[in-house]
């Protein structure tokens, strides 16, 4: 533990600032928390793998398809799969799309800037011309509504970007689970360190996007664009999904006309760290879909913990959501550590001061989050 020479913070969440400064995480360390977090990240890893594959499939194969009826089938359409899909006992890829759209809408990072660049527009134009070269109706419409098809391709770029981001995250979570099973992960700081190491290892992994039309490859986001995993997809993802989110109809009905939703997107606080784990009635709330998906892949040791609660499996999705939020505070801790101006265990007073300001800035955003409940 590193002792700080600074005065104790007077922030409302000073306790968590001091925890971070002393090498701990936003989630307090306990064997129960470790078991829950690793267990839920295992099931999240499995689900992210499926989401990632599907997002990449859609980006690579369903681009500029106006009615992509079978986009969730990954190219394997059969009657059995169709009935399975309608039965809804499946992976809800809708959640992945919800995240993609939230990222596209909130923007941020290099990916957001690149899809608005002339290079991107030029690349996309080539794809449009190739895709519809014999379809003069669509090309005619494209000349009238010049933004429609490029916007579809921007969305595809986000499909691909998020798919690639989740590919890495899925692998990180699965390897975390494997290490826990081997006894290498024993505490919440271990969990955070594992995630941080994974993020750092792949921080500069290039984010690219290319499609193939009639055996010809079209590079839409080339490696030369310089987009990287951490800063261009990871950070915007945390901002869009963990913090801002979208005001979906859940426990609270929002009335935009009554100014219940802020004008400034940056002030949105509907993300995963703020979400109310208690759904009320409305089916299909995106976070509920994710919990439903993770429910299928819970490791036995975590399932056993849930079975021993008061409601047993009656409120499984709420319990998963609460655990998931805990795990997301670990992932956020890794992001905070990774993005900190100086190592959080620095002994240099100036660096400590800069870190304190940095952390207080983060904590301002956590005031209305579920951080206290996650630690209760």
């Amino acid at each position, binding site marked *: 533990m590193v002792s700080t020479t600074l005065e104790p913070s007077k922030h409302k969440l000073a306790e968590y600032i001091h925890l971070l400064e002393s090498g701990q995480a936003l989630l307090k360390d306990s064997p129960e928390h470790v078991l829950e977090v690793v267990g839920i990240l295992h099931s999240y890893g499995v689900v992210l793998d499926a989401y990632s594959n599907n997002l990449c499939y859609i980006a690579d194969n369903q681009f500029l398809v106006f009615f992509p009826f079978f986009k969730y089938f990954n190219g394997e359409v059969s009657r059995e799969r169709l009935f399975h899909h309608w039965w809804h006992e499946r992976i809800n890829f809708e959640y992945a799309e919800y995240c993609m759209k939230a990222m596209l809408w909130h923007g941020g990072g290099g990916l957001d800037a690149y899809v608005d660049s002339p290079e991107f527009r030029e690349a996309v134009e080539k794809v449009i011309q190739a895709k519809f070269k014999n379809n003069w109706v669509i090309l005619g419409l494209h000349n009238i509504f010049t933004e429609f098809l490029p916007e579809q391709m921007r969305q595809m770029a986000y499909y691909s970007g998020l798919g690639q981001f989740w590919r890495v995250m899925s692998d990180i979570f699965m390897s975390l689970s494997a290490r826990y099973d081997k006894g290498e992960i024993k505490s919440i700081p271990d969990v955070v360190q594992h995630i941080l190491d994974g993020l750092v290892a792949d921080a500069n992994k290039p984010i690219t996007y290319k499609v193939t039309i009639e055996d010809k490859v079209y590079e839409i986001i080339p490696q030369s664009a310089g987009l990287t995993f951490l800063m261009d997809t990871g950070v915007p993802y945390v901002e869009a999904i963990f913090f801002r989110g979208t005001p979906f109809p859940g426990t609270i009905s929002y009335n935009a006309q009554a100014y219940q939703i802020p004008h400034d997107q940056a002030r949105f606080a509907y993300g995963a760290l703020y979400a109310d784990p*208690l*759904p009320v*009635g409305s089916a299909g709330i995106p976070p509920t879909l994710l919990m439903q998906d993770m429910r299928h892949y819970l490791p036995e040791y975590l399932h056993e913990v849930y079975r021993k609660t*008061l409601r047993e499996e*009656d409120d499984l999705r709420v319990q998963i959501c609460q655990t998931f939020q805990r795990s997301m505070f670990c992932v956020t801790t890794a992001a905070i550590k990774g993005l900190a101006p100086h190592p959080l265990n620095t002994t240099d007073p100036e660096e400590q001061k800069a870190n304190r300001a940095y952390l207080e800035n983060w904590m301002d955003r956590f005031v209305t989050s579920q951080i206290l409940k996650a630690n209760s």
Partner: protein
Amino acid sequence: MLSALIWLPLLGALAIGLLPGKTEANRFRSIALVVASIVLVVNLLLIFQFDPNSAQMQFVENLPWIEWLGLNYHLGIDGLSFPLVFLNSLLTLIAIFATNKNIERSRLYYSMLLLLSAGAVGAFLAQDLLLFFLFYEVEIIPLYFLIAIWGGKRRAYAAMKFLLYTALSGILVLASFLGVVWLSGDSNFDYESLRGLGLPVATQLLLLAPLLVGLFIKIPIFPFHTWLPDAHVEASTPISVLLAGVLLKLGTYGLLRFGVGLFPEGWAAIAPWMATLAAISALYGASCAIAQKDMKKVVAYSSIAHMAYILIAAAALTPLSLIAAVLQMISHGLISALLFLVVGVVYKKTGTRDVDSLTGLLNPERGLPITGSIMILGVMASCGIPGMVGFIAEFLVFRSTFPIFPIQTLLCLVGTGLTAVYFLLVVNRVFFGRLTEKLERLPQVKWSERAPAFVLTALIIAFGIQPNWMVRWSEAQTTSLATIDGQILSQNSQKLEISELKNNFTQNISTPQIISTEMSQRY
């Protein structure tokens, strides 16, 4: 066969009481369940043997008992008592099933419960005025103990209040019965022989007055109602189920059987006043229900309002209105029992019935979603939403009473409208919104706790979709009760177009052909 319905629960109560040694609580529960199940099976056997086309007493048993007193052990069942006897056996089984398995002093509890059931069924079957009075009084004793021992915090007060009111009710009923025998010069209390005496209207009114007050206390009708909300609030859930579902019906059954049966002309003479009292009672019950914060009190005041519809239907005194009265008895028995069961589950799981403390119970994960859904269904049935038994009963009540007492009926209709107001207020507060932190950790509702409510829900919907299954048992009897020598007793009967009645009856509610053919013959 009818004796079995009385003696089986009595013997069951005796067996539980005399079982030697310290026995597990569950053993008493099992015995009570077996006895109640056998009684229900006997009832089901009755269904196959009962002739619904006959207006006569069936399965009659008549044994002399205390001859010098004119008391005979005279039992019989007809279309008026048959549905209530069935309701009693069903709700007794449900009440036993819904009882907490770990209830204290279980030996006494289950004995009392079976004794209560025996008393109620005895009163429904008695064809001797004194025998009816005996059973009417017998059921007071176990009910007093059931409230006084296993009730809530103010149980002693509520039980004593109940005892005083219902004892007074019994005395007034007895006074009326004694008056009938003395003034008619008859030597016994046999119902059939007293029925055709044709007492002068003034004498009938004199005897009807104490009977009505006695029965109004039992039903209860405003302003004799004050014991009921206290009794309901303090009684445990199974007892509230029996109280609302069956025991209050002793009052309305008494009105039809003895008020209409023994004093038809006197009844017809004061019918408009009774209709007015019914309208006041309906509006008063509904208004009080709006102001309540305790869910159980809301259902209790709702009970007062809905029981008043039976009175207005009985006051109208036409074949259609009397069958409507019987249907309303069944409907109220099923719906109020369901609502009390559901409120009981809410109380058991949350520890409160205060509508201001409860919110968001419909939450699919952490709340009581199925219980809440059943509550909403019960509320809809109580409001008279089509497709459920409440609609059939209330529609028939208002359809049959409107031509006779238009203003009173319209006031009762306002009461029905208010049902939606007070129940939706409760549902909105208790079941919608977000669960409070205090309510986020509610225990599970087990399937066994939901099962009784499911049975009642199924009946409420089944009778709502197929009212014929209820109507057919009572038609002949209620038609007979409403007429003397082919004349409808109601003073305003000419206002009701018989052809219209027939059309409505056959087309709108799919009543069997029998009612129209009988009417054709009569008119």
